[in-house]
């Protein structure tokens, strides 16, 4: 079984983003970029399926500017087998719908039985690409996964839902999106980082797939969120209780 894992290059999750004063966006110049954390979990899950003898090959694909090569190499160093880079540099974030359309074409070419994606990218926070890809392919979807078992042509997936956990069974081929507790991604070792440089990496462009990536949403402005003023420090529990009672809060 071949597993396809799309990965996105995003601003590192430890970086405090700065909104540009003119409202045009966030400052991405000289900022550390990394693989989207939810995508790292997706790569890890695919590699574990391969190590367990369930998956035969793990292919990673990234869509974006040329620098996304680093993100693919990172996944290859973790243990993925080969990469596909689809370059599309329009200077703005490519929307999930366009990404899903490109991925649908990649799926057509590669015929994976399972596509594992991060549930959301930590830049646009859309939480949409996996669901959209499932729709375009007419496949079943199991989003926000905390456990994935492959058995009898199905993926049995436990999902993180509002009230607790839900388990569903999805016929393969299928889409799975990862939540935080699915696994803990490994660090790539130095020898594996060296080996990853020799793993195959194909380069394509969005135009090769005939997909129109023009955005449907126009970003009018990007602003700082409304701030919140710090209040007061209280000296004791008694003082805190008094303040809460004063405010009619308890």
């Amino acid at each position: 079984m071949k597993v396809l894992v799309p990965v996105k290059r995003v601003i590192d999750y430890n970086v405090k983003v700065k909104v540009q004063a003119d409202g045009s966006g966030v400052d991405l110049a000289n900022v550390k970029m990394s693989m989207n954390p939810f995508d790292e979990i997706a790569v890890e899950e695919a590699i574990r399926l391969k190590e367990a003898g369930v998956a035969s090959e793990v292919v990673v694909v990234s869509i974006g500017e040329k620098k996304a090569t680093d993100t693919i190499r990172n996944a290859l160093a973790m243990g993925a087998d080969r990469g596909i880079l689809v370059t599309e540099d329009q200077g703005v974030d490519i929307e999930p719908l366009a990404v899903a359309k490109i991925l649908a074409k990649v799926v057509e070419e590669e015929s994976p039985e399972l596509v594992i994606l991060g549930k959301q990218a930590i830049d646009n926070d859309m939480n949409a690409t996996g669901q959209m890809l499932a729709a375009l392919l007419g496949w079943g979807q199991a989003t926000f996964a905390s456990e994935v078992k492959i058995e009898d042509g199905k993926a049995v997936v436990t999902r993180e839902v509002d009230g607790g956990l839900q388990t569903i069974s999805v016929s393969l081929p299928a889409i799975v999106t990862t939540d935080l507790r699915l696994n803990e991604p490994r660090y790539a070792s130095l020898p594996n980082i060296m080996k990853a440089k020799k793993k195959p990496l194909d380069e394509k462009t969005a135009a090769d797939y005939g997909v129109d990536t023009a955005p449907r949403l126009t970003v009018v402005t990007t602003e700082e969120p409304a701030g919140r003023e710090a209040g007061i420090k209280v000296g004791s529990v008694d003082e805190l209780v008094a303040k809460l009672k004063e405010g009619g809060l308890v």
Partner: protein
Amino acid sequence: MAVLLLAEVAGGALAVDATAKAATAGAKLGDVTVLVCGPSSAADEAAKIDGVSKVLVADDAAYANGLAENLADLIVSLAGDYSHIIAPATTTGKNVLPRVAALLDVMVLSEVIEVVDADTFKRPVYAGNAIQTVKSGDATKVITFRTSTFDAAGLSGSASVEAAAGAGDKGLSSFVEDKVAESDRPELTSAKIVVSGGRGVGSEESFSIIEALADKLGAAVGASRAAVDSGFAPNDWQVGQTGKVVAPELYIACGISGAIQHLAGMKDSKVIVAINKDEEAPIFQVADFGLVADLFDAVPELTEKL
């Protein structure tokens, strides 16, 4: 403008709070029709939400467990009559609506916090560190609304209820089981008071002191991502950009440093109390009342004195 709102149904009952909050957002866009995928009792509840003009009910086993494939097809079959298709940004809404959007060849707008006009919306990006105003050029707008930023509509309405028929089960996925956390505590996203613990709580056992304070106050229990990652608390307690977004009257953060991703999930709370032994913790920058103290002393004392 006509709006189709996918009601939140959990365990065969209408989740009134989430649905009524999304109804408030929907009313800013036009005439709201609520689609209830569940029993007629849930539809009758939805009919009471103020501002709802009609309720469509699809009482079919295929829709009972929120399976995205079946629900999305049902919504798409109804979509022609509506300019906006909306849902509360629950795990169900976020699972189903992007699928609907792709089937309609439109973009989805996730976790919208403000309606500017019929095409323009505000939504948080970068874990709430920036707010984007986006204008959609699509024919149909598909939107999930972050419920914590909208007040729930009242419950004095009496909309008509009609049956909606869909194609039923596509057979792509099937429901196996729910493991719903049994609790007498209020639901996290609609609770008036939330007591949360962070990494500082130190262990799963020690979380009992957080729970004791919550129970004393009739509050819901929350946790930071650090506490969840460390195995101190279950994931459905997680408050933050990757968990639940809450805005209670009172939020008590115990042993929580105040990472950006956590603040994104609770900074709209009316009053924030922080108890942390590190006086430099960023949580104090958003707290109305800060107490620099060891939570293992302060939280039991607070529980006793309230």
